[in-house]
């Protein structure tokens, strides 16, 4: 039986609400997208701690930063793409000063679907990863999104968490423990390793089933912390398989693929293939149609793995 499908943004919203009940210092800053990011669950129960700035992302970040220096814990959420509009404030006010601001970008990647190019952030990981002091997280399912929201409250510093519009299967049980900076082995293998993040974790898992039927056994690893990256695990599994594939719904420039390549090129160069959006913008369409067209679906991943294994 297929497990229940829930979007990671649901996990974000649900956890924020729970956190709000437990911790009075938690506040939310919203730029008129609370219904989409699901921050509205918090807003409805705690209107006095839910600050609206209107459609003004720069001010959302500036306000969240100002709130944070008083000791409150602001979560600031909008679409991933619109957070980029405030990038220089994220850099100069939040990251430069190591302020305790939790930024959440929803509707990331081409899985955003029908809204098309303008809404499909495919460069957010790259830009936030380049900021000193910033950590970059992307949950694979709604449970992991919830755990992240809770874990972030114990982490003092700037963070960027990337969530998604589309519902994907829940792969974690409710007792799953998320730790910042730790990769998670979901499948054991020997022929290759797929490091996947976010929605592509599901495609990688399905790809491993396809490959298994062909007698190819691959590791599938969920990399939900893209910065700081779990270098130790990446090097260890590269040594075991000598064949590394990365999979992400993000431009192949600057995202997970780059992060893994950076680790391996300096520590253990080996055969590697980066699966992701090939330096192009997306378009309107259904999420699964887009994944097929842009080579992010399980079959495309299985095909790439088969090809690269032959080159080993």
């Amino acid at each position: 039986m297929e497990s229940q499908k829930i979007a990671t943004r649901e996990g974000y919203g649900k956890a924020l609400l729970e956190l709000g009940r437990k911790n009075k210092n938690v506040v939310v800053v919203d730029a008129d997208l609370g219904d989409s990011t699901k921050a509205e669950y918090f807003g409805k129960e705690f209107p006095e701690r839910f600050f609206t700035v209107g459609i003004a992302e720069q001010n959302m970040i500036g306000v969240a930063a100002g709130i944070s220096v008083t000791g409150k814990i602001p979560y600031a959420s909008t679409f991933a793409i619109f957070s980029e509009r405030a990038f220089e404030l994220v850099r100069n006010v939040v990251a430069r000063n190591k302020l305790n601001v939790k930024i959440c970008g929803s509707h990331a990647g081409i899985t955003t679907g029908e809204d098309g190019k303008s809404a499909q952030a495919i460069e957010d990981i790259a830009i936030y990863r380049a900021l000193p002091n910033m950590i970059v997280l992307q949950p694979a399912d709604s449970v992991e999104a919830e755990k992240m929201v809770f874990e972030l409250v114990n982490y003092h510093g700037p963070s960027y968490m990337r969530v998604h519009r589309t519902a994907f299967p829940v792969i974690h049980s409710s007792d799953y423990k998320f730790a910042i900076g730790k990769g998670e082995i979901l499948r054991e293998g020997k022929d290759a390793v797929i490091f996947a993040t976010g929605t592509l974790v599901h495609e990688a898992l399905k790809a491993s089933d396809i490959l298994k039927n062909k007698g190819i056994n691959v590791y599938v690893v969920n990399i939900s912390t893209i910065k700081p990256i779990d270098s130790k695990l990446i090097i260890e599994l590269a040594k075991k398989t000598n064949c590394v594939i990365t999979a992400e719904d993000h431009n192949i420039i600057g995202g997970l693929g780059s992060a893994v390549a950076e680790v391996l090129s300096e520590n253990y160069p080996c055969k590697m293939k980066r699966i992701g959006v090939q330096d192009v913008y997306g378009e309107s369409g259904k999420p699964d149609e887009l994944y097929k067209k842009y080579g992010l679906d399980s079959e495309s991943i299985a095909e790439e793995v088969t090809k690269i294994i032959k080159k080993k």
Partner: protein
Amino acid sequence: MPKDDILELKQKAKELRKSIIEIVYKAQSGHPGGSLSEIDMLVALYNHKLKIDPKNPKWEDRDRFVLSKGHASPGLYAVLADKGFFSKSELGKFRQLGGMLQGHPELSIPGIEFAGGSLGQGISFSVGIALALKLDKKNSKVYVMIGDGESQEGVVWEASMAAAFHKLDNLTAILDKNQVQETGKTKDVMDIGDAAAKWKAFGWNVIEINGHDMGEIIKALDKAPIKGKPTMIISNTIKGKGVSFMELNYKFHGKAPNDEEYKKALDDINRIDVKKFK
């Protein structure tokens, strides 16, 4: 405020004008123009208005002053050193490698509440502080100084709209309207028009003064805040005020004086008659 006290503040501003010149001359780098325009207001804030404790810069119940126009750091550093937030010897290491006093303010410096350098951001940051203080029902006030050139940044207006919407009557902004920006007169680069009308239309209480007249400054600061809305003090100033060749001269927005200019600048300031100065 008694006349003698006002005279004392004016004397202090005169001294700190000299500090600004010394700081920038020694570093051979920095922004003298906007520091000289803001200094009278900063002296009034730090010596008359702000509830602060230089021995305990992070005192929870303090008022906050945010310098959004962070390039005018020499003026703020001069005031903070004078108040005893840090040693005056630090002023001589402004902008030098390993020195505490960075080109633009950093939060690591005692007394600094906002790390400026990128324009428009301090007022947005101040809205955040003011919201949080209100949520906790604290009496502390937030003061933020922005520039007229800075008001060309869109986020200034995003923040101004939000401050009125959230009825932030614990927030007072000061527009250091010194008329000049990096490449020329503000009215020639991008005229911000009728600033008073703009902030009134955004829902603010607006007070307009001569920002070099200590009496007017004190009166304006004592009139704010009022209940239910944020206050904007439009402080009409002259960039480079007090140094003849720097006044309204965009070339001294971000340039240090040479040896000759340094002597002339100090001469000019020494000749200021504080009784008549405004």
